[in-house]
């Protein structure tokens, strides 16, 4: 009996190893290919990557910087992953993020004077709600008339982005030359990590990082242990069987896309509250889109999103040091990112490369 249990454990470990292994191997292969590119370009790959590592994890301040950059990617990665689990491709996380940021920038000023915990709670909830609302219309269009969410969420991204552009240059513009909103009062911002815990005293990392990790666990739990997540996954896998089990495909679609939007909205909220303290046109460097890559690398597993986001955060925070110390252009990081995504997407290729040729699962009749 014990042997059987052990074997079962072994089988489960094998499955886990494959789920973790493929993304991990993809990352390694991406690094290897990037090394060759660096070498061909006439630089020293070893120096480049050690500088990259140093830039990302070399000191408390740098680790904090990596955490800071990973934070929005965790939110958007979770957003995209949740959508994927329900069979939806929320390509418009960027727009929901902008709307969440807008809500925070506006409310942070309006609510000035309230006690900080209350203020922060309201802003987080409201930002998530606005993100959800921005996903709601595409969701409704999908559920009612079958309009594809890739098109509609993308369109809503443009609307959201340019709405923000206009607001920060016009109606919500703070005094001065720069198109940006007014600086948020202290009680409307997220505390830095070192203000709450005693580590990385000179880093910019903020509480959003902790919130994101907690949310990742919550999303994982929702997907696994609640009817809400169960229905989302059921619809994502097999809408016909879901229908037959009394699950409303359209209601589930709407709920899932709104939850996805709420998570993306939080990325905007925490960027505004934790990093910039205000909203301006360029406050997101495409976090919503990078979130797609994060979700892909994490194979849509919420816990995996934490690690995938930290990896992408590290690439971004270390690239500066790489340029400075090894002369390798920091843009090269984008090549590495693209390679990782390519290799994860071409999972079969990665399997083949490590010599694990396995035939696809066959349908047993």
């Amino acid at each position, binding site marked *: 009996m014990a042997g059987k249990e052990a074997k079962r454990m072994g*089988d489960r470990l094998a*499955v886990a190893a494959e789920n973790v292994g493929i993304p991990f191997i993809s990352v390694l292969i991406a690094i290897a290919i990037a090394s060759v590119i660096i070498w061909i370009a006439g630089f020293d790959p070893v120096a480049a990557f050690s500088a990259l590592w140093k830039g990302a994890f070399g000191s408390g301040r740098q680790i904090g910087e990596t955490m800071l950059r990973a934070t929005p990617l965790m939110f958007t990665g979770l957003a995209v992953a949740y959508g994927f689990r329900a069979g939806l491709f929320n390509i418009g996380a960027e727009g929901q993020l902008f709307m969440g940021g807008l809500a925070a920038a506006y409310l942070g000023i309006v609510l000035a004077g309230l006690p900080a915990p209350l203020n922060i709670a309201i802003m987080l909830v409201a930002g998530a709600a606005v993100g959800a609302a921005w996903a709601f219309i595409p969701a409704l269009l999908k559920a009612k008339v079958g309009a594809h969410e890739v098109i509609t969420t993308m369109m809503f991204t443009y609307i959201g982005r340019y709405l923000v552009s206009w607001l920060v240059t016009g109606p919500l513009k703070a005094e001065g030359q720069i198109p940006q909103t007014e600086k948020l009062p202290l009680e409307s911002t997220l505390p830095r990590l070192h203000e709450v815990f005693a580590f990385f005293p000179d880093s910019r990392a903020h509480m959003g990082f902790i919130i994101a990790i907690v949310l990742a666990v919550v999303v994982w739990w929702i997907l696994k242990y609640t009817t809400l997540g169960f229905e989302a996954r059921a619809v994502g*896998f097999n809408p016909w*069987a*879901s229908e037959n*089990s009394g699950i409303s495909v359209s209601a589930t679609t709407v709920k899932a896309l709104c939850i996805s939007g709420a998570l993306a909205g939080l990325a905007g909220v925490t960027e505004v509250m934790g990093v910039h303290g205000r909203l301006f046109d360029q406050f997101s460097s495409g976090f919503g889109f990078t979130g797609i890559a994060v979700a892909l690398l994490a194979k849509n597993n919420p816990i995996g999103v934490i690690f995938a986001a930290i990896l992408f955060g590290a690439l971004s925070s270390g690239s500066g040091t790489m340029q400075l110390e090894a002369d390798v252009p920091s843009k090269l990081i984008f090549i590495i990112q693209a390679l990782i995504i390519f290799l994860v997407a071409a999972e079969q290729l990665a399997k083949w490369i490590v010599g694990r040729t396995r035939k696809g699962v066959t349908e*047993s009749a």
Partner: protein
Amino acid sequence: MQQSLVELREITKVFPGVLANDRVSLTLGAGEIVALLGENGAGKTTLMNVLYGLLSAESGEILVDGEHVDIKSPQQAIDLGIGMVHQHFMLVEPLTVMENIVMGIEPSKFGVINYPAARRAVLEISQKYGLEVDPDAKIHDLPVGLQQRVEILKALYRGARTLILDEPTAVLTPQEVRELFAVVRSLVNEGLSVVFITHKLDEVLSIADRVVVMRDGAVVGETRSADTDTAGLARMMVGRDVVFRVEKDPVSCGDTVLEVDELRVRDERKLTAVDGVSFTVCEGEVVAIAGVSGNGQTELVESIMGLRRPESGHVRLRGKDITHARARQTIAAGVSHVPEDRHRRGMVLEFDLTENMILGDHRRRPFAKWGVFDQKVINETTAKRIEDYDVRTPSARVLGSTLSGGNQQKVVLARELGRDPELLIAAQPTRGLDVGAIEFVHSRILDERREGKGILLVSLELEEVQSLADRILVMYKGRIVKEFAAGEASDEDIGFYMTGGSDSSATVDETESKGVTRGR
């Protein structure tokens, strides 16, 4: 001794926690029909998937025409003259018969398909083997029997000399089975050999030269079909005697459970599929709907379940109007549904067994409270149902897709019957089950009947209809064309009405009624 065409030696295939094939050897001579028989999960499909290159075995050898071969993909199997027709067809529905057959190796010049040549080639093989089919018909317009014929033609067009048929008769009506057997016989006359997987013992006896019986991944017996009978085969398969006809008490009809009144339903293409159907099912009664597939049964069941909106008419459950109820309300009102297609509506293949076991009950206590699962209750229920229904699986945590076809069906049955419904709608409930499992499911259905549940059975299997039903409704082109009481009609009588016979034309001879079947 005939020259063997294909030989499998000591094939071993292991899945996580399952020894699916345990040193299995099988030889197949030219012009021979071998039936592969065995309980659900015995490893029949696995063995054939190894031969067809879909799975790679841990150990063992495959010989074709006496030569060692290493089959890594279906393409290689096809090149070696091996063809396989899966139980779940792999046709492209919107395309024509001809396009499906030549797909991938179409005769072409500079990338332009030579349609006349393709048509000639298709007609040639279809005539050679007596597999008549309209090359220009669209797949989705064809009845299942003809779709299967297209699958066979596809394999032949690719030069198959060995044909593997995995449960080909599970979806066919008796008439279509007879036609298939004629085709198979003409194939072996041309020197092809056929491996035939089935759970129907009389079919084995009537078509196969030799029977190989598997149990728990190993071959446990082999016999010439002339030397055995159904009881003997059943004993070899399950290791005990099997009761083929269940005993049932006379019906004691209580209150009306289900009332269907002048129901009209359209199908996807907006054509009338159910055309004014009325009937009732009462407590403690099994009402069977017999009919060739595609005569409106699916749409009828779906509209009762709330999966499809009826055009007009009424559905009442214990007097309550549920005509426009959605599936969730229908389930809550006490209706269970075993769908005809387990892969499409019956289960989520990517879910594990615990998740599949609560589909439809996943919002309810005791499985969920305030939207959160009670994992302990779910695990216990799943374990109990796996035990009760003898689902062969290494654990409750494996994905639905890894179960054998029959075991998937058992999961669906365990869930739907486990709900303790007022009304059970069972469409092809024993599709793909072995004889032992059929015996069990039939007795479970009769238990429900004894408890005063209403049962609506939709089945192509006349044997099943005859042994379970208290009343038989024959459905043809969306209408109930005839009603029989239990034991009143012979299979031929029912078959006559199923294929378009009517009381006024009771003299129409059989050849004409055949023609009607084809046209759907």
